[in-house]
């Protein structure tokens, strides 16, 4: 009878050690590499205090195109963290007279990478607060896609999610069922259009 207690006790210890090794030890000894990584400001770590130039996109004076506007943002070595920094600035209210193509109140819920694709999860305000026009929807989508892909060469395409879910469109036009690549079709060419008041080469020190 006493021998059985020792056997039961030994088995329990072995089981506990095994569970600890499987769920705590191994992940510590062999940290996962190459898995999709979601980032947050808390986990972000700036490599230095230098700022880096990033092009963000706003609506032109005539409302018919996007214009690139250069901002200086905190530089980070991790593309996932850098992408979040850029997008949060793109979603923020721009200085006058710039107009944002993204509905006010839109928040970045998550940003993560898988291979060369970025997934941008936005709050529902991006659709609920939208004017509903197709050109405006193109501006909203490509301001986000271009802000990421134009500034981070390691990211090839962006898929937009709303409230954590895949959607067909934001407001009934632009197909969001797959990742979208950089598209400057709706971005004004500063050389070809000298009338723009907010050309790409303007800078704004944050």
């Amino acid at each position: 009878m006493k021998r059985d207690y020792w056997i039961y006790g030994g088995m329990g210890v072995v089981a506990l050690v095994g569970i600890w090794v499987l769920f705590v030890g191994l992940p510590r000894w062999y940290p996962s590499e190459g898995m999709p990584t979601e980032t947050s400001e808390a986990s972000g770590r700036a490599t230095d205090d230098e700022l880096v130039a990033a092009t963000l996109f706003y609506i032109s004076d005539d409302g018919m195109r996007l214009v690139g506007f250069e901002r200086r943002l905190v530089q980070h070595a991790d593309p996932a963290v850098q992408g979040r920094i850029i997008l949060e600035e793109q979603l923020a209210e721009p200085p006058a007279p710039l107009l944002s193509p993204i509905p006010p109140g839109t928040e970045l819920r998550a940003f993560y990478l898988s291979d060369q694709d970025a997934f941008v999860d936005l709050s529902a305000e991006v659709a609920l607060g939208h004017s509903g026009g197709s050109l405006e929807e193109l501006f909203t989508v490509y301001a986000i896609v271009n802000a990421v892909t134009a500034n981070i060469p390691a990211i090839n395409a962006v898929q937009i999610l709303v409230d954590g879910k895949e959607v067909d469109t934001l407001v009934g036009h632009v197909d969001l069922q797959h990742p979208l690549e950089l598209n400057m079709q709706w971005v004004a060419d500063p050389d070809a259009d000298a009338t723009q008041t907010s050309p790409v080469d303007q800078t704004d020190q944050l």
Partner: protein
Amino acid sequence: MLLMAILSANTCQVSKTLSPIRGMTGRLLVACCLVWLAAGSARGQTPDDPLTLVTPQDRRPLPTVRFDGRRLVAISELATPFGLTIADVRQPGRLTITRDDRIIVLTANEGLVSVSGQLVALASPPLERDGDWYVPIDFIGRALALVQDEPLELRPRSGLVLLGDVRVPQVVARYQRAGRQSRLRLMITPQTEHVVEQSDNRLLVTLDADALDLVLRDMRPDALVADIRAVDGQPALVVELRDGFGSFSATTEPALGGAVELVIDLQPRPVSTTRAAPPPTPPPGPRRGAGAGPPAGPGTGPTALIPGETVGDAMLPLLAELAPPRRIRAIAIDAGHGGNDVGTRGPDGALEKDVTLAVAQRLRNRIESELGLRVVLTRTSDTEVSLDERAAIANNDRADLFISLHTNASVRETAIGAEVFYLRLAEYGEEAREAGFTGQLVPTVGGGSRVLDIVPWEMAQLRHVDHSARWAQTVADELSQRVPMSPRGLQEAPFRVLVGANMPAVVVEMGFISNPDQEAQLTSTTFQSAIVSGLLRGIIRYRDEVESETLPLGPVDAGAPDASGRLP
């Protein structure tokens, strides 16, 4: 130690001194251990296809490995061919590489590398494993190229690494079948001298280059061709022919972007009732072509190669004639939005869903009364219809053209003008475009088989997008004569409602309802009639064009509209 404990548990079980519960515990631990071992092996690196380094002097393989789905190359493999020196002083988690006075610094698990002080982003961070460092293959083109004296380029699709002054044209090969005939289209970029010659049961296409960057699409063996592949170590591709092959003709045409398209039409062996003996083997002989030169006409091809068989070949239909006849019999009109989805809203309260329905009904009445064509409306009342359902309605009712009506909106009240959109193909990638032309051999009733194009539902528009571009151009031209157009009246866009339409399809944004003046126009009978007249005239023009011309096989490369919105 864990494994020993598990084995011990199982030994005890075998000796039947433990209860069944203890036996289950042992099995559970063994299973956990096996799962962990399997997961561990999956996380390891496995050899992958090597890259090929091409220099003016030679070609050599560059081994690669695959780790967690990423294709990596070891720094040690790059050192010799690229003259790299790995610094002796190694810091933990950091590797310094030099080439002359230029320095590359890698940091483990950091996506950026420093190249002579310049930060370069990689597709994934470098890995340090067993004393060696591994980098994603894009390191070659993005970082290594910056420290080389000679040009260095990575061609990831073909796995080529080009170092120095080497000529390696890209050749995108597409193989299409139509009836008993086949066509091999080779888009050669940049244009390069080439020779097409037949030798026994193979065609050899040799380019005047150092190597070949071949991208092969849609290759499925058929009665004429068994295989198409690159020739190892040579700037050539070979077409392995089957017994059913009779003759070929080759033509070249200049293409966009300094490319040249080499088109090789393959004809089957004609069935001759006047000759018992098979036709003689055509004499092998090279046929030289160049991108800029005049195309060699088909008449100089098969008829010259097989004397006496010209009548048989002439009886075969031309490839262009095998394209399905195009007739415009039914028009699908899609009134955008509806029901709870009101669309855009004007400053005076006009709703997009009401304007689109009113214009759709006006257009239907005029098409039916003036053209006698059948009209399909995706909605006839204030109801909500999903985007995919709209395309499905048009497809199921066999419409020949699709028009989706909308009004636009902008945060700038001054925005004004109509716009016409067709599907932007680039968003769906070259692979998706190819998917629209994938032939599948299916059996037919009574025996035999035929080739059917299998088109994924959500990509039905891909095979029509070139015609959609011309249809959109026609609509934009006609609207521009009747209503104000935006500065870019014709555009491409990845609009969801177009993707599933199995016919030429456009979205027409009739004006900006957010502009107070345009809101008044869009709700007026006069403006709506002008829009309807423009669309009606566009339908008539497009119908007359497509019904009067012989359409070529395959897509028409319409290209993208220029700044003025006009197609090339």
